[in-house]
Structure formats: structure tokens, C-alpha cells
């Protein structure tokens, strides 16, 4: 069973087992757990014993969106690095300057983008 698609069958098995375990325990604890009373106070959101103020999902800093956007940009670039890393050694035998030079240009562009983010204070959480 050498084919790569077949290798995902055990992954699916593991997924099945892990989810069976997770949902099984959730179900079992719902059945076996103590049945408590409900009251208005017990149902409130936990805010250290004070009366809850306002909504649960409060507004939050726009910085978090910024981080998410930067993550997509940089993560895609990291994914581009992997195929290059894998073939790098073999390609060095054939055409060393091409494989080295092309990636250096790519990383230079990466670096320019990174410096731009720093200058734009995208990572500056104090402001």
C-alpha cells in the first residue's frame, strides 16, 4: 500500500477515534454528571461576582484584524519557502546560482514588506 492517498486512511481512523472519544466523553458527562438547579443568578455571565455589564462580545482592538491580515500574507510566503527548501540541495548540483539567487530576490521582497510593516507600526501594540 504505497500510494499516498491510502496513507490518509489511518489519518481518518485517528480522526474518527479522537472525535469518538471527545464526543463520547461529552455525552457521558452530560448523562452521568450531577443534575443541578438553575437560577437567574447562576445563569449570568461570569464577571467576578459583579452584575454583568453590557454585551458579552465587546468591541475589541482593530490590531487583532491587522495581525490576522499580516498572518495570511506572511504565512503564504512561508509556504512558498518549503518547496524551495526541499529541492534546494538537488538544485545546487545543477544550477547553484539560479536557485540561490532567485530565492534571495524573493526574500528581499519579503524583507521589504516586513520593513514596511514595521515602519507602519503594525507590530506596535503600545500605541
Amino acid at each position: 500500500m504505497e500510494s499516498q492517498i491510502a496513507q490518509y486512511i489511518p489519518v481518518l481512523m485517528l480522526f474518527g477515534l479522537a472525535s469518538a472519544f471527545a464526543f463520547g466523553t461529552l455525552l457521558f458527562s452530560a448523562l452521568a454528571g450531577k443534575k443541578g438547579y438553575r437560577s437567574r443568578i447562576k445563569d449570568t455571565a461570569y464577571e467576578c461576582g459583579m452584575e454583568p455589564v453590557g454585551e458579552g462580545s465587546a468591541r475589541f482592538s482593530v490590531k487583532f484584524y491587522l495581525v490576522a491580515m499580516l498572518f495570511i500574507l506572511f504565512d503564504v510566503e512561508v509556504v512558498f519557502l518549503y518547496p524551495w527548501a526541499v529541492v534546494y540541495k538537488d538544485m545546487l548540483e545543477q544550477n547553484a546560482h539560479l536557485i540561490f539567487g532567485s530565492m534571495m530576490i524573493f526574500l528581499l521582497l519579503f524583507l521589504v514588506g516586513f520593513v514596511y510593516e514595521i515602519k507602519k507600526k503594525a507590530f506596535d501594540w503600545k500605541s
Partner: protein
Amino acid sequence: MDFLNDSSHWGTFLFFSALKVVMAFAVVMPMVAYSVMLERRLSAAIQDRIGPNRVGPFGLLQPLADGLKSFLKEDFTPSHVRKVYFIIAPAVSMIPAFLTIAVIPFGSVMGTQAMVIANLNVGILYTFSVVSLGVYGIVLAGWASNSKYPFLGGIRASAQMISYEIAMGMAAVPVFMLVGDLNLGKVIEYQANGAWLVFKQPIAFVIFLVAAFAETNRLPFDLPESETELVSGYNTEYSSMKFALFFMGEYAAMIAVSALMVTLFFGGWTLPFFGLNEAATSIAGGIAHILVFLGKVACFMVFFIWIRWMIPRFRYDQLMDLGWRRFLPLALANIIITAAILWMQHL
């Protein structure tokens, strides 16, 4: 049962795959339980306390009692939560942690079977993709709780985990430049034939280690559940087994990243002496390799726990600063230097 000896048969493949999955699960679950136990005993020792020692000999049955207690506690779902997401969130955060172990070779061979659940050629890419799925459970828990502290914990967790994922991904690139294959089995082979990669890529290892702490939300980076400001972060509204599942997920993730670090930087199941560098030829040798692997993972677990009780928590801006402005350029420089050295060897 003749087909069991025929390694090209479909039935054999399915049978041994199922066996390996069940065995791996049966080993990881007690490891999770006993690392909680270890954490409690070690923290007690560090703080000059005694720790749990009453249940069974030396308190060894404590995890069992803890599990039973979680089952019997009231499973309370507050009425202000988004119910469906609230219930599936603990499962969503736990399952990826277990899925990570699928591609990690935990031993050499036993009989005709390689000791890895799924021998994927994309290896590390699978690991990174599954590790990053872990963030969904936590964000979902924070959002579905519909309460302020869990919500803050959830968004903090998401920002932290995606930030350090980049550092982690970039730190591992030089390793694969040296190895030339994404399959983790090949990484171990490479290390068995030379030196462990921690000696060739120390910077990559340090970045990867710190990113691993941040990815698993462990101190000094446990901002998502920093008790002093967010009560308990994303799991504030959870009780009973739902809470325990988050807990198990965290420890399973620790075991998974420890196993990953052992594989990438510490030679996996190999050991440079006692002839343990070659794939095993007997069943006993196969078991020895598995034990070596588990021993290395256990060392990392102790390290994780030790760090937790030794180093205070970072501030949030320090955490982001470290991830983006320190580690990202450092990892980039490491890639360029490694590339340049390999290039110069070919001039």
C-alpha cells in the same frame, strides 16, 4: 489470518493501521493524564509543597480520581451562550492535538510495519496545518461563551497562535533545506547518518522551542488564560468534562509539539550509542526504539513544566514584539545564512 503476513494486502494495511492508531491513542491518553499528575507533583516540589500523594501509592492513581470527578460534576451550560458552538468547542480544540501525532515516527520498525501511523510525503506541512486548526476550538470557545473574559481570551489566543505559527514555520525551513525531504522519517534518517539537527541548527531550534510554548499557550506565554486578568480566559464558562477536554487538549498539544521537536532536532527514535541508530531487526529492538522516543518526549514534558514554574508571564505587547519583530527576522536570517553556506560549498 494468513493475510497478516502478506504486506501488500489491503486487509493487512487496514488491520495494522487500526492497530497502530489504537495503540498510539492508548499510549498518548495515559501520557496526558500522567503529565497533569507530573505537573502537580513537580510544581509542588518547586514550591516546596508535597502535592497530591494520597490516592494510591505515591498518589499514582490521582489522574483516575480526577477523571472520575470531572465526569460526575454538574455539566452546566449557561443560558447566555451560543449553545451548539459552546458544546462542540472543547472537542474541536482537542481533536487536532491528537491528529498531530499521525505523521510522527514513534519507532523504527516492528516486523514489517514501520512505526508511524501515516507515512505522508508532505509530513511537516500536514503537522503545521493541523496544529493551526487548534486555534479554532479556542476562538470558538471564547466567542460562543458570550461573556467578556472568555471573549478576550479567545481573540488573544488567535492572535498569539497565528503570530507564532509563522515563526515556527520559518524556523523549520533550514532543517528541510539540509534534509531535502518533507517526510519526517527522512528527517530522522538524516540525523542518524550525521549529527542531530539541534547541533547544526541551534537558532532554528531555539525559535521553534519558544514558538512551541506560544502555540500550546503555556507559560510564559499563557496570555489567553492569564488568571490574574482574565479569570481563566476562554474556558471561564466551562465546567465538568467540557473543561477537562480543554485541559486534555492542552497537554496533548504539548506532547505533540514535544514529539515534533524530538523528531526534527533530537534524532527521533535514534540514539547514537548501543547500535540504536539503525532500524530494528527484532521486536525487542523495535520496543527499545519506542522507549527511547518516549523518553525523549518525557524530557521535553519535564522541561515544559519546569519552565512554567520558573518564568513569569510576558505582557501582551512583549509577546507580539518577540514574535514579529525578533523571531521573524532572526528566522529569516537563519534561512539566508544556511542557504548561503550550502551555496558556498558548491562554488
